[in-house]
């Protein structure tokens, strides 16, 4: 039973446009959410996080939005750049300190 769901396996976006990656979760006890980026043959690298007491966190081109009532979060990347092509993982953390990941979304930035 997946607690963190990324329902889009892949997404293609034109360079310079906005990329929106979505994530849903089922466990209302999660209180911290993270986004990681992964290139082939490398470990995931941290991008941005958000606490459940907030609804938005911004860091440069990356913004994460959290809708607790819908158990939904999204990562916005604007403007999208070629180096943003990677797999993006959504993750959630509860009081038990487990970091639970989604299956990932592969983002392709088109020239």
């Amino acid at each position, binding site marked *: 039973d997946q607690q963190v769901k*990324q329902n889009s396996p892949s997404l293609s976006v034109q360079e310079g446009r906005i990329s929106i990656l979505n994530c849903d979760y089922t466990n209302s006890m999660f209180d911290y959410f993270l986004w990681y980026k992964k290139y082939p043959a490398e*470990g995931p690298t941290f991008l941005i*996080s958000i606490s459940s007491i907030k609804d938005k966190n911004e860091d440069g081109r990356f913004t994460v939005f959290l809708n607790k009532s819908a158990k939904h979060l999204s990562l916005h990347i604007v403007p999208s750049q070629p180096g943003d092509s990677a797999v993006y*993982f959504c993750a959630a953390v509860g009081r038990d*300190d*487990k*970091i639970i990941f989604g*299956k990932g979304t592969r983002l392709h930035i088109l020239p």
Partner: protein
Amino acid sequence: NAGVTQTPKFRILKIGQSMTLQCAQDMNHNYMYWYRQDPGMGLKLIYYSVGAGITDKGEVPNGYNVSRSTTEDFPLRLELAAPSQTSVYFCASSRQGVELGTEAFFGQGTRLTVV
């Protein structure tokens, strides 16, 4: 600035063999994690540790064992390798647990094939 170091990078095991995947971090992090990544399946938590001497099961612990005798090291042991354990394994660490605002840092991964 080594961060999280995993060894080996690649390994081929025969069914029934055993091996230990090594993970070391030099950031004095309390929390450490082991994940496996299967194609199209994301990262699944195997075991984690919130400090030396403390370990807990994750989502998919069966077939694995861990120990945490020091803050720096968190080895993952496969006792009887099975083809289902063919995967890429990632170790990660964080200072206090990510909900306190410190993200987890990942190693480069160990690609294990069981034949």
